[in-house]
């Protein structure tokens, strides 16, 4: 290993634009996740019955509340693109950071592919209802990804303003349909007593439901990716993330209540678009139309947010030379990580065209889960290396280390849930991350500048 004394030159670099406010952070976080209420959460019903799904919704809600609390503190202090990747780089070390960035890029790119696939399938289904049989969804999937990538290329402000508007519509749509099904009159439209039959698999079914229970909230941690583009990260990230989490708990509970009161649990457990199907069986045209539009909007919002987040994570990796530095460029006019955005388009399209929706969703969920496990370790180290008062924190979360410990234990439970349903995928994905880690340590890290990785104006970490 060659070492020499050099001076690090100061370079003028074009930075990402600081234009975002709390509503954009809300639009990004909720936008990525809300699609989970329109599709995906209901697979937890198949795993543990309707009641099992509700318990999973609340327990996993607790997991994500811990994630939101931890993220709010660390991100409001480490306000940089890359989010958890940059946190890992400063708090744990390069190999962890590389892995975290891979979790992020893969989780978001695969979620984007899943969103676009469902968008295409939904158009195909509706076209079928109007007599256009066998509509090929692939061109629509492709156009959806291209349109959203173009939006991201043109600027973060317009991208996340668009996301805020369509996400707000999708959220309000759930509330409107909730009131539309007269929840104050059980047995009129909603028939929970006729449709809920206890726990078909007992308590182990509830644990198994945790895996898809993550779909209620998966991606809320993506708010951190926008930290470098916030006018005030210390204000926007905690406000946007916490309010986003509250929005999601409300949306998840309402969604469960509507769907479990209208659809047989066996059907619900395998439905592609459960809220839209729930609207169909009400025989109400306005509810059906609003749910169709909202399902499309939620898919677009999620894919849009995923492009934003995956590109920031890839950009950050490349900026630090963890991956080829060519992708670390910022557009001189739009001030977006345009090369990363463009690079990820064909990858997302290829994932969408694999017809492996199951595998893609499981890979996405597991990448998220590995990231949450990291967060619990990261939080404990963060407080230990820089105790309260040693650096300025934008936000300090209460009850430390309780959220970190709780998050870790819940992650262990979800690993077990994943083993119950997708043990093969779990081992396969772990093998991928182990091989990627070896590749990074023994090959890729030789291209990385060591001291340049630590960019925060903090004192030396305690114990180092």
């Amino acid at each position, binding site marked *: 290993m060659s070492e020499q004394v050099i001076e690090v030159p100061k370079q003028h670099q074009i930075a990402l634009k600081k234009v975002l406010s709390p509503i954009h952070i809300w639009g990004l976080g909720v936008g990525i996740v809300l699609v989970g209420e329109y599709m995906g959460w209901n697979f937890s019903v198949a795993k543990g019955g309707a009641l099992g799904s509700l318990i999973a919704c609340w327990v996993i809600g607790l997991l994500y509340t811990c994630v939101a609390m931890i993220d709010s503190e660390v991100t409001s202090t480490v306000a940089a693109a890359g989010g958890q990747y940059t946190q890992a780089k400063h708090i744990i*070390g390069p190999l962890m950071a590389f892995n975290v960035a891979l979790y992020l890029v893969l989780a978001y790119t695969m979620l984007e592919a899943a969103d676009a696939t469902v968008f295409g399938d939904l158009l195909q289904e509706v076209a079928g209802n109007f007599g256009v049989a066998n509509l090929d969804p692939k061109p629509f999937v492709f156009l959806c990804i291209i349109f959203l990538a173009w939006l991201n290329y043109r600027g973060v402000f317009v991208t996340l303003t668009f996301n805020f508007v369509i996400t707000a519509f999708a959220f309000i749509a759930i509330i409107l349909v909730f009131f539309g099904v007269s929840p104050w009159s059980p047995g009129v439209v909603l028939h929970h007593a006729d449709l809920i039959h206890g726990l078909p698999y007992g308590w182990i079914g509830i644990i198994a439901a945790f895996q898809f229970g993550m779909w209620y909230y998966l991606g809320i941690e993506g708010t951190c990716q926008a930290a470098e583009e916030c006018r005030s990260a210390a204000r926007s990230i905690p406000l946007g993330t916490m309010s986003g989490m509250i929005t999601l708990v409300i949306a998840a509970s309402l969604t469960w209540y509507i769907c479990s009161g209208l659809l047989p649990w066996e059907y619900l457990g395998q439905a592609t678009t459960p809220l839209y199907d729930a609207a169909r069986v009400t025989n109400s045209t306005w509810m059906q139309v609003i749910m169709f539009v909202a399902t499309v909007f939620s898919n677009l919002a999620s894919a849009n947010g995923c492009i934003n987040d995956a590109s920031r994570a890839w950009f950050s990796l490349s900026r630090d030379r963890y991956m080829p530095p060519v992708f670390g460029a910022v557009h001189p006019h739009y001030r977006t990580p345009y090369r990363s955005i463009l690079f990820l388009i064909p990858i997302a399209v290829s994932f969408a065209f694999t017809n492996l929706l199951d595998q893609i969703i499981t890979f996405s969920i597991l990448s998220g889960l590995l990231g949450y496990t990291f967060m619990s370790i990261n939080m404990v180290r963060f407080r230990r290396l820089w105790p309260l008062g040693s650096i300025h924190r934008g936000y300090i979360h209460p009850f430390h280390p309780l959220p970190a410990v709780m998050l870790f234990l819940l992650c262990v439970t979800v690993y077990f849930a994943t083993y119950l349903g997708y043990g093969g995928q779990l081992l*396969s994905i*772990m093998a991928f991350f182990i091989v990627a880690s070896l590749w990074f340590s023994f090959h890729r890290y030789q291209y990385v500048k060591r001291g340049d990785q630590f960019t925060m104006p903090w004192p030396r970490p305690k114990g180092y």
Partner: protein
Amino acid sequence: MAKAHFVPKIQSKLGQFVDCILILVLVYVSLYAPLFMQGKDNGNSSNSSQKVTWQSLNQNTYEAGQWKKLGYTPQQAQPIIQTRFEYSISWPVLGLTALVIIGYYVFMLKISDKEYREVIREKFGDRP
């Protein structure tokens, strides 16, 4: 005191391209690998040759009505209704899975710590 900086190697364009492709290939391998393994559990369904009715599928009047609204006949709904998951635990496989996950994190944290010390030494100088 001047700090000693590690000078990273410069990678060729071809090398950068190969690195990107390699990661992508690994992702695809891990996506397709489970298809060739026995680990996937899609649930089991049983079909019988007897005449299927909503009653024989244990669906009450309201449930049968909802299935009809969704466009299903008892025959079409049967495989959905009768699909069941089996949550059997193979302790050796569970142990192996736990070992892989724990081993992965231990390896990653140990190597990260070694690399982190190098970063801190270069950034802040030798430990006082």
